[in-house]
C-alpha cells in the first residue's frame, strides 16, 4: 500500500516536472520579442534590450528555466510583469474562491449522480428514461450557457441571488453561500449528467453479477445488497469519471468565474492571458497541474480503498 502511494507520488512529480518544462519552453520560446510586446511596437531597440535584461530574458532558456525552478521549489513563482505582485501571493488569494466552486460542485455532483444513477438503474421504465434524457441534455449544454441563464433568471429577474461578487466564507457563511450557489449549480449540471450515466451503467452491470444473486439467496435485503455490495463494485468506474469531470470543472470554473465576476484563479488567468503576463500564466498552469495531480492521487487512494485488487497488487 505504501509502495502504491510512493509510486503514484513519484509519477506525479515527474509529470509536474515535464509540464513545467514544456509550458516554460512554449511561453518563453519567443523571448526575444517578449519585451517588445510589453513595451509596444514603437519602443526603441535600446529600451527593448534594457527591458529584456531587466526581466532576465537575454539569458539562455535553460538558465532561465533553472532559475525559475529553483525559486519555485522554495515557493517563489516570480513577480507579475504588470503590477509587480508576487505570483504566489496572487495565486493563494484566489485559490480559495476557485476551490470553493470546484470542490462544492464535485461533492454535489457525486451525491446527486449516485442518487440519480441508482434510481435509474433500479427502477428502470420511465424513471430511467427521464434520468437518461436529463443527462443527455445536461451533458450537451455548455456550463457557461447555463451560468448565463441562471444569472438572467435568478439574479436579474427574480433577484434571489446577487449577480456578481464574492463574499469569503470567513466573513459570512450565509453571504458566501449566496455568492457561490449559482456558480456551483452552473458547474455541477454537466458533471452530474456524466457521472450519473456512469453510475447507472455500472450499477446495472454490477446487479447482473452472479455474486449479487448469491448474496440475495443468502437472504440479505435488496437495499443492503445494492448500497453495500453493488455500489462498492460500481464505485470504481464512477470515481474514474468523477476524476475526469473534476479536471473539466477546473476549466469550466475559468469561464463561470468571469460570468459571476468572482475573483478566482480563472479571472487571474484571463487577465494575465490578455496582458501577456507570462510569470502569472506560468504560475497558474503549475497551480492547476498541482491541483489535478493531488486530486488524482486522492481518487487513486479512494479506488484502492474501494477495490482490494488495486490495493493488493
Amino acid at each position, binding site marked *: 500500500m505504501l509502495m502504491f502511494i510512493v509510486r503514484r507520488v513519484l509519477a506525479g512529480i515527474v509529470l509536474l516536472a515535464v509540464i513545467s518544462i514544456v509550458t516554460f519552453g512554449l511561453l518563453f520560446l519567443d523571448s526575444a520579442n517578449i519585451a517588445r510586446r510589453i513595451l509596444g511596437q514603437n519602443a526603441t531597440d535600446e529600451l527593448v534590450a534594457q527591458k529584456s535584461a531587466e526581466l532576465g530574458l537575454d539569458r539562455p532558456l535553460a538558465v532561465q528555466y533553472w532559475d525559475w525552478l529553483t525559486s519555485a521549489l522554495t515557493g517563489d513563482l516570480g513577480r507579475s510583469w504588470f503590477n509587480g505582485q508576487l505570483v504566489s501571493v496572487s495565486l493563494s488569494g484566489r485559490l480559495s474562491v476557485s476551490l470553493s466552486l470546484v470542490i462544492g460542485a464535485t461533492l454535489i455532483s457525486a451525491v446527486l449522480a449516485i442518487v440519480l444513477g441508482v434510481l435509474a438503474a433500479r427502477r428502470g421504465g420511465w424513471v430511467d428514461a427521464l434520468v437518461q434524457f436529463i443527462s443527455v441534455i445536461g451533458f450537451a*449544454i455548455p456550463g457557461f450557457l447555463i451560468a448565463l441563464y441562471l444569472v438572467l433568471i435568478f439574479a436579474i429577474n427574480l433577484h434571489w441571488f446577487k449577480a456578481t461578487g464574492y463574499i469569503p466564507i470567513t466573513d459570512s457563511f450565509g453571504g458566501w453561500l449566496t455568492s457561490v450557489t449559482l456558480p456551483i449549480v452552473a458547474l455541477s449540471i454537466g458533471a452530474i449528467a456524466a457521472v450519473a450515466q456512469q453510475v447507472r451503467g455500472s450499477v446495472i452491470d454490477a446487479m447482473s453479477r452472479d455474486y449479487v444473486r448469491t448474496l440475495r439467496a443468502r437472504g440479505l435485503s435488496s437495499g443492503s445488497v445494492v448500497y453495500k455490495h453493488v455500489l462498492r463494485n460500481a464505485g470504481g468506474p464512477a470515481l474514474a469519471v468523477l476524476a475526469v469531470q473534476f479536471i473539466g470543472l477546473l476549466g469550466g470554473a475559468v469561464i463561470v468565474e468571469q460570468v459571476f465576476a468572482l475573483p478566482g484563479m480563472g479571472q487571474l488567468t484571463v487577465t494575465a492571458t490578455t496582458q501577456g503576463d507570462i510569470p502569472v500564466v506560468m504560475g497558474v498552469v503549475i497551480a492547476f497541474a498541482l491541483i489535478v495531480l493531488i486530486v488524482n492521487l486522492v481518487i487513486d487512494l479512494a479506488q484502492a480503498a474501494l477495490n482490494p485488487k488495486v490495493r493488493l497488487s
Partner: protein
Amino acid sequence: MTAIEVPTAVPTPAMKTSLMRRLVRRPVSLASLIFLILVVAIAVVGRWIAPFDPNVASLKLVLATPSAAHPLGADSAGRDVLSRLLAATQITLAAALVAVVTALVIGVISGLIAGYYRGWFDSVASWITSLVMALPGMVVLLAARTVLGPSVWLAMFIFGILLAPAYYRLVYAAVTGVRGELYVDAARVSGLSDLRIIGRHILSVVRAPIIIQSAIITGIAIAIQSGLEFLGLGDMSVPTWGGMLNDGFANIYKQPLLMVWPSLAIALTAIALTLLANGMRDVLERTTVVRRRRRRAVTTATGSIAAVTTSLSLSGGDLDALEDSAELPVIGDTIVHPDDERTGALDAAPILTISDLRVGYQQTQGEDIEVVHGVSLQIRKGEVHGLIGESGSGKTQTAFAVLGLLPRGGQVTAGSIDFEGTQLADASERAYAGIRGKRIGYIPQEPMSNLDPSFTIGYQLVEPLRAHLGLSKKEATDKALALLDRVGIPNPKRTFEAYPFEVSGGMAQRVLIAGAVSTDPDLIIADEPTTALDVTVQAEVLDLLRDLQRERQMAMLLVTHNFGVVADLCDRVTVMQQGLFIEQGPVRTILRSPSHAYTQSLLDAILDEGPARGPLITAGSAAVAAEGGRS
C-alpha cells in the same frame, strides 16, 4: 477549410446506409440529423443569404429591438443580428472542424501504431496521453493564447491536440482487442501487409465508434470555442457565436434578447450532436449486445437458460429449440416410478411441493417465451433429489423460481411452490423474508463469480449470520471460522481474511457451501455445485456435500447434468427435457430400468459399456417410445 470537408470523417456508403437506415427510424435521431444538416447548409450558404453585411455597423440601430427589416434586432454596434448569426455559423463550424480533424488524425494514427505494434511507442504515447489529460483544456488554451495571440484557428488546432486522447484510447482499445483475433493472424500468415490488415480488419471495427466520438467532440469543440470567445479572448474581427454571446452578455440589462440567439444556436447544435451520437450508439449497441450475449450463452452452456433466452429474444432468429418445445403437445404425465425400499424409508412429509409450475420471460416485443411448461415435484424432508437434464432444459430456471431469483424479465406464470405451508410462487420479497438464506440455502455453480470481489470472505460469511441469527460480530466470526474448518479449509483464519480472488476455485466452492449451510437450512438448492471444478476437487466437494447433508438432515435439490453425481448422492431423481419433467423416481430404479428413451440416452452417455450413442432423441419421438414402452 470550409464545412464542406466534413466527409473526411464519414465512412464508406455501405456501412453508412445500414447505420443510417436504422438511425432515421428513431424520431429523435432523425430530428437531430435534420437540424444538423440545416446548420451545415447555413454554414455553407449563410454568408450569401444574409440580408445585410454582418460587419456593417449603424449608429441608428444600436441595440435595436426586432423589426421587419431586422427580425432579430441589432447588436451593441448596430449590426444586424440575423446576418451575423448566419455568417457566424460558418466560422464556428469550420473552427470546430479544425479541432475534430486534428484530433482525429493524431489520435487515430497514434492509436493504430501504439495498439498494433506496441513496444516503446505504446508506452510513450500512453504517457503523453496522461500528460495531456492532466491539465484542464481551457487553461492550456489560455496559456497558448498568451504566446500565439487571438487566432481561433490556432486555438482550435491546439484544442484538437488536447482532444486526440479521446480517439487514441478508442482506437487503441479496439486494436489491442482485434489484433489477437484469429482472423488477423490468418491475414498476417497469408502475407497481407500490415497496412492492408489495418485498413481492412481494424479500421472497419473502429469506424462506427469514431463517428460517434466525432459527434460528441464536435459539440465539445463548439462549446470550448464559444467559451473562449465569450471570455473576449477570440478574434473579435470575425462574427462567431461565442463573440455574439459576449456582446449579448455585456448588454444583458439593456437588451437581454441579444444573448438568446447565439445561445440557442450553441445549445441546440450541441444537443443535436449529443442526441445523434447517443442514437448511433444505441443502434450499434443493439447489434453488439446480441453478439456478446450469444457468446455468453455458449460459455454458460452448462445450465443457465436465461442467457440463451435473452440472446434469442434479441436476435430474433434461431429460436428453434424453444419454439419447438413451445409448440409441442403437452406430453401426458411424467412417468413416476413407485418408491423402492430405500426411498420408502424416508420421512414421507414433503418440505417442498412444486405443482404445475410454469416460468416465462417477458419480451419487449411479441409473446412471452415460456421455458418451464408446467412441472410438478415433491421433495421430502431429508431427501436428496436430483434434477437432471441437458443444458437449456430448464432445470436452473426451476431452481431459481423456487428461490425467487429469476433473472430480470422472468417470472412464475402459473402453478404453485409450497415450502412448508408458505406459497413462494411469484411471491413478494416479504414472503421470502426468513426463508431465503435462512431456511433455504443456495449453492451456486461457478465459485469465483459468486463471491463479491470487494469484500473479504469472512465478511461475506458473517453478514448473513448476523442478519438471520442476530449474532454479535464476535459470535458470528467464531461460527464462520468453525464452518470454514468444517468444510475442510486448512487454515480457516487465513481464508477468513482473504479476498475471493486470493483463493482457489475449490476453496471458494467450500466457502460457498459453508455459507449455504451456515444458518442450518432445511433445504439446500445446489445448482451444478461441481461442474466448474477440477475432477479431483469434484469428488472431494461431493463427499463434503454428502457428509453435511447426513449430518444436518437437510433436504437437497441437486441440479446437475451428470448421472454420476446423481448416482453418488441422490435418493430420488427427476429427468427434465425441454422444460418438462419426463421421468421421476428412486435413483436405483431409474438407473437400472429407465422407462423413457431420453433417460436411456442420458444414461448411455455416461456408461462406459453402454451401446454407442444414437442420434439425440427429442421429446416428441421419446414420448412415442415411452408410450410404446409402457403399453
